[in-house]
């Protein structure tokens, strides 16, 4: 055994792995010829391999394909949607954004079915009508939701009416009048205002008005 080259196991393994060079093959061959112990080990390894390789080929059961196919998760609609999302991530993100945005805005519209108006001094309310009384002067913007506005006195500011009417009368308004009574106009108005608000935040100001019911 003392005469065995140190790397004889390595040479043997390389040979069995089919990765030996002609030179190392020669060294191995010569050594096996002279050394009984190594020859025995080599023969046993070869026998081991032959034994393992005598294992017969195993086949899957005959109904394997149909069983496997039946066990696959049901995909259909959900899978298609997922696949679409994967293919168009940007579009998907945009679609989700639009869906959430419009949902928020529409729900806003439905929540706002109540009568509401901007609280200003000197305003008089009769039922669902907001009145600027004769001889009075109101300074500031007025928004009326789900109600009408009648101006008999003087109003210095803009008027916005949602789902209501501005009733023309002898009053004086110095500002713009806007009437909104349809859902999509309401949407548009919200978006426009959102942009305006954002702009006014950046310009460091804006008209703040608190809404009261």
């Amino acid at each position, binding site marked *: 055994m003392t005469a065995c080259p140190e790397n004889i196991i390595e040479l043997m393994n390389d040979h069995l*792995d089919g990765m030996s060079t002609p030179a190392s093959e020669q060294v191995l061959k010569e050594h096996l010829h002279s050394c009984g112990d190594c020859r025995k080990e080599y023969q046993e390894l070869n026998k081991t*391999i032959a*034994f393992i390789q005598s*294992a017969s080929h195993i086949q*899957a059961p005959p109904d394997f394909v149909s*069983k496997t*196919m039946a066990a*696959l998760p049901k995909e259909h609609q959900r899978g298609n949607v997922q696949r679409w999302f994967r293919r168009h991530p940007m579009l998907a993100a945009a679609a989700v954004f639009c869906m959430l945005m419009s949902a928020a805005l529409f729900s806003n519209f439905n929540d706002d079915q109540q009568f509401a108006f901007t609280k200003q001094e000197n305003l008089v309310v009769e039922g669902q009508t907001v009145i600027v009384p004769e001889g009075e002067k109101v300074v500031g913007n007025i928004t009326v939701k789900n109600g009408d506005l009648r101006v008999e006195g003087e109003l210095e500011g803009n008027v916005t009416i949602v789902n209501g009417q501005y009733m023309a009368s002898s009053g004086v308004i110095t500002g713009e009048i806007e009437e909104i009574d349809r859902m999509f106009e309401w949407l548009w108005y919200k978006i426009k205002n959102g942009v305006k608000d954002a702009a006014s935040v950046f310009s460091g100001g804006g008209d703040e008005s608190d809404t009261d019911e």
Partner: protein
Amino acid sequence: MQALINKRIGKVLKGDKESYAEIVELYQHQLYQICYRMLGNKHEAEDIAQEAFTRAYVNLHTFDQNRKFSTWLFRIATNLCIDRIRKKKPSHYLDQEVRGTESLDMYSQIANDNPLPEEELMQMEVQERVQYEISRLPDKYRAAIVLKYIEELPLAEISEILDLPLGTVKTRIHRGREALRKQLSNL
């Protein structure tokens, strides 16, 4: 071959589930054989092979079509097999002593881990014996030996399937081979 597979994969990804049946058809025997040799049990082999095909189907979009499909599929299967083997092992240490006994350890409690008596081994049929000896290998070596000698895959492919460096795969095959030689010394 690979082009053919990729064509099928493309169809499956577009929603044509039936094309996957052709893929299963092509690889069923190889995959089942790996699982059977790893687990040594027909029911478990079928179970795990099916699970591997299902996982491959669900994650098909992550498969890189520049690579070999069988490598990817076999990797899923060997991982599942190794998981299964580890789960079957008891959580105690095998050589911990059983309480109240002097020299009885857990080995003696698990019939399966005890080498069978000589005469019983001699009565085994060759095929039975082959599977028995493979099952006695530690799972680390078992996967490498099965892929190398049963599936006869090149070392480079085995290294990809097992996600191990080539050198480690070689070492495992050498050690597995040596362990088998010792197990078979009475043959």
